[in-house]
């Protein structure tokens, strides 16, 4: 499967990739995006099977990115990996069509719990 990781921090994208491996999700293709606008473009060009997105990004925030995807008809499975995990934000994310919210700082177990239903 192909996984799109959207985060404006290169260091955090590296950590997400590493945590995917530590969680046992090996062998997946990873595509990186540097912000929400880049991610929106890459959903079109790369057709990922799963999107893992930060919330707080320049140009297009994660929630704006998700809403743009759904408004455009894309139903790609989408989860947030974000430092903001309040109940209100989880509700906003769910209402917009996100499958899960993984809160930074995270553990490999959090990735396993959230991603196993999607990646198997």
């Amino acid at each position, binding site marked *: 499967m192909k996984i799109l990781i959207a985060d*404006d*921090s*290169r*260091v*955090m994208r*590296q*950590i997400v990739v*590493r945590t995917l491996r530590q969680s046992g999700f090996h062998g997946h293709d990873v595509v990186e995006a540097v912000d929400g606008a880049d991610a929106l473009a890459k959903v079109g060009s790369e057709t990922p099977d799963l999107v893992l997105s930060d919330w*707080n990004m*320049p140009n297009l925030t994660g929630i704006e990115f998700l809403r743009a995807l759904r408004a455009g008809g894309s139903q790609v499975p989408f989860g947030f990996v*974000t*430092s*903001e*995990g*309040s109940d209100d934000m989880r509700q906003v994310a769910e209402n917009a069509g996100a499958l899960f919210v993984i*809160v*930074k*700082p*995270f*553990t490999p177990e959090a990735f396993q719990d959230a991603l196993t239903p999607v990646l198997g």
Partner: protein
Amino acid sequence: MSAALAVTPLGTDSRLMDDVWNVVEAVWESLLGVWPAPAEPLHVGEDWWSAVVTVDGDWRGAVSFSCSFRTAQHVSRTMLDLAGDEPDPDVEDVEDAVREVVNVLGGNVKALVPGGRSLGLPVLECGRPALDGDLVGEVHVGWPGHVAHVGIWHTGSPSLHLSTTTSSK
């Protein structure tokens, strides 16, 4: 650590700084692979790096993370999982790592303060953060060979604010 901040006008002592310390422990364990300990009170040096992220909502403020360049390099090496014989990361990656630490701290602090609604994008400064507000809480963080300072700043909102009597551990 003991509770350091009182939340007014809610009228009861908050365990906010205890919660902030719990956040620090979780962030250090997850991002740096270490369990931090309270350090002796630190002075943020003029040559230190400070990353700041704002929190907006009913309570308006900011979270800062300050450390020396040597510690910033260590933080970035650890976050990038570089081996000992690999060269130091580019300065852009060092800046990115320091900003990301405060971003994660800020997102979690936002969830602790009353009515926190939005988080800004982290910015990097040299020396003590230049914020138009009051430092209302701080923790001094130590781990083997390194120390860092985490500050909680109140920058606005007349109706609901955090006041402090002590700080840190």
